[in-house]
């Protein structure tokens, strides 16, 4: 027990540092994937067939293969095949590679959610906007966007909560996120080795963060209840 109390601050400090990296990856992914997903959604809905087929093909590849493979390929491919390790060394390079992989992967999932949301809006909304002299851009931003957001909040909430846990996959390219930090105490780090309990603490970090997100997303859903 004494040992535990002695080790706890050391472990928590390491986990906090790891968790900050986890949160960074989480937010950067959302920031990139929200808009990129919308662009991909418009691509796949385009009337220009080659563009729509191309985007659908890309979405098929990205959704059809494991994120872990995508991470490994994006991180190692430039260096091993072109002898041009564009990601640079160190934690910064690993983070950049992880962020790019996550953004592309999640944007593809988001694009399908967006597409469903946009196509679920009755045609009459667009037509009403057109006869009132609105441009297509105004119709999207002033008429459709909020209706789309309302429709997709439940599906998006699912993806966002999955993303929190998926960030741990970046462990495979040794990104120093929270699992990496917790695992270090199994192998031995800062005089602590063979300890499994830090991993339980990792799980608690994920649980709390997902709890916070669930509450926030629930509030957003309530907030959009003012219209139907």
């Amino acid at each position, binding site marked *: 027990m004494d040992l535990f109390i002695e080790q706890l601050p050391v472990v928590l400090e390491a986990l906090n540092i790891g968790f900050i990296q986890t949160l960074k990856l989480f937010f950067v992914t959302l920031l990139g994937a929200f808009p990129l997903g919308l662009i991909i959604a418009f691509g796949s809905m385009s009337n220009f067939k080659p563009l729509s087929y191309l985007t659908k093909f890309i979405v098929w590849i990205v959704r059809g293969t494991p994120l872990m493979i995508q991470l490994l390929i994006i991180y190692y491919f430039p260096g091993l095949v072109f002898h041009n390790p564009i990601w640079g060394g160190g934690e910064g390079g690993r983070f950049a590679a992880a962020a790019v992989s996550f953004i592309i992967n999640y944007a593809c999932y988001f694009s399908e959610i967006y597409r469903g949301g946009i196509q679920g809006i009755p045609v009459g909304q667009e037509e009403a906007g057109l*006869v*009132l*002299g609105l441009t297509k851009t105004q119709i999207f931003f002033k008429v459709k966007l909020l209706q789309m957001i309302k429709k997709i909040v439940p599906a998006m909430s699912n993806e966002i909560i999955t993303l929190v846990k998926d960030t741990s996959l970046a462990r495979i390219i040794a990104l120093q996120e929270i699992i990496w930090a917790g695992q270090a105490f199994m192998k031995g780090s800062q005089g602590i080795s063979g300890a499994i309990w830090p991993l339980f603490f990792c799980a608690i970090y994920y649980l709390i963060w997902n709890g916070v997100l669930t509450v926030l997303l629930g509030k957003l859903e309530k907030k959009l209840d003012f*219209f*139907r």
Partner: protein
Amino acid sequence: MSILEVEHIKKSFGKTEVLKDISFNLEQGEVLSIIGSSGSGKTTLLRCLNFLEMPNKGVIRVNNEILLDTENPETLKESEVRKKRLHFGLVFQSFNLFPQYTALQNVMLARELLAKERPDFKANRKEILDEIRVNAEELLRQMGLEDRMNNYPHQLSGGQCQRVAIARALALQPDILCFDEPTSALDPELTGEVLRVLRNLADKKTTMIIVTHEMAFAKDVASQVIFMDDGHILEQGTPEQVFDNPKMERTKQFLSSYS
């Protein structure tokens, strides 16, 4: 001079010819009722006038200005269409109000967005927006909705929604206001309140085209009636001519199904 001249409009969807050579004129302040069975092309005609569909052939003139001439590709450009639409207003069967905006916001939205394109908008922002709001409130008052302005569409009855939609179309002061079966989605009790609004507009000499199945109303309010059948205008004239003395056998047959 007619406010609206439609000449030889043709429209096909794939191999189906929906409009086969439609021509008519409409005078300022007149109310034109278009009647006919489902599938006769009434709605497609209204959608062509509002450029929701592009006619394959024909000419549309408003106040002697050519809005569309299929022989002249200049008039078919997408960028031009938006301005031309503003000559017409369209009220839909299913209202198509924007659910996330209140009644008042629905009426104000299009004018606000247009106002933002004015070069003097930044300088006179407050005056312009105030004027739009006052105007929208006045329109809703005319529709008998003074105590419903801040309600969202889902809080309104169908008849109230349709009246908001009419106010929304009027806010842009179109030359010609079109109605596509404005009461067909309403139960009979709510039909009356919308028809009364149309009656008022007619009394104020609003130029209107009304596609409707309300024969008694059409006969009462219209100054001109068109009976459409299978993509043609089969009969056209005053309500007395079309309703009381139809010349064509098909018109008689159609009207008899309503009596």
